């Protein structure tokens, strides 16, 4: 019995090492100016704050990711984006399963308070995220997403809540 108990303790102790590494990297990311990969980064500090007319967002279609920070909480993450019919969209997949919901908390936070800052090519844009749950426009947006990324996003996956889609419109 003692052997089994010791074996379990040894396994747990050894597992603690990668867990500690991940936790340390996650904590360190929170003090950074922006996100790196999956861990939330700190507020987007550097970069000129854009002021002026609504930009032509089509340039984002050539960018793999952008940085996005919510105002509440002051955390940032790296996300996919697409422009469709002069509007900018961000989204989160995996929202239909438990792991995804634990991993991706920003969509819930954005639905509560949509004020966001996007940093694209070193320029920061103040935006307001508004969730889109249904509508004919989803066909075109989903097509734009799948044309740009290896994504299986469809109108149905958005309407079913597996993908949470937000329009990043101007902040009023």
């Amino acid at each position, binding site marked *: 019995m003692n052997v089994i108990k010791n074996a379990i303790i040894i396994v747990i*102790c050894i597992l*603690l*090492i990668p867990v500690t590494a991940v936790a*340390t*990297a996650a904590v360190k990311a929170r003090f950074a100016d922006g996100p*790196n*990969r*999956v861990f939330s980064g700190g507020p987007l500090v550097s970069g000129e704050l854009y002021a002026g007319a609504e930009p032509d967002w089509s340039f984002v279609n050539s960018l793999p990711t952008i940085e996005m920070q919510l105002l509440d909480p002051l955390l940032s993450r790296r996300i996919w984006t697409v422009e469709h019919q002069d509007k900018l969209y961000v989204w989160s997949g995996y929202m239909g399963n438990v792991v*995804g919901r634990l991993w991706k908390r920003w969509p819930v936070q954005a639905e509560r308070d949509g004020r966001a800052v996007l940093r694209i090519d070193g320029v920061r844009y103040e935006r307001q995220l508004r969730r889109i749950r249904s509508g004919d426009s989803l066909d075109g947006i989903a097509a734009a997403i799948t044309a740009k990324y290896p994504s299986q996003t469809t109108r149905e996956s958005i309407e079913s809540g597996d993908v949470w889609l937000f329009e990043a419109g101007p902040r009023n």
Partner: protein
Amino acid sequence: MKTFYWLIAFSLVLTVLVVALVPGADDTVERIFQQYLGRAAR
């Protein structure tokens, strides 16, 4: 077991220091974690 506990404690402290201070170590940890997370979420 006592020696083992000391070894684990030392390893944990070393892990924190390496990830926190060595340039690129945090990125490597994040990249590996991303791979596992992506698989788990599918």
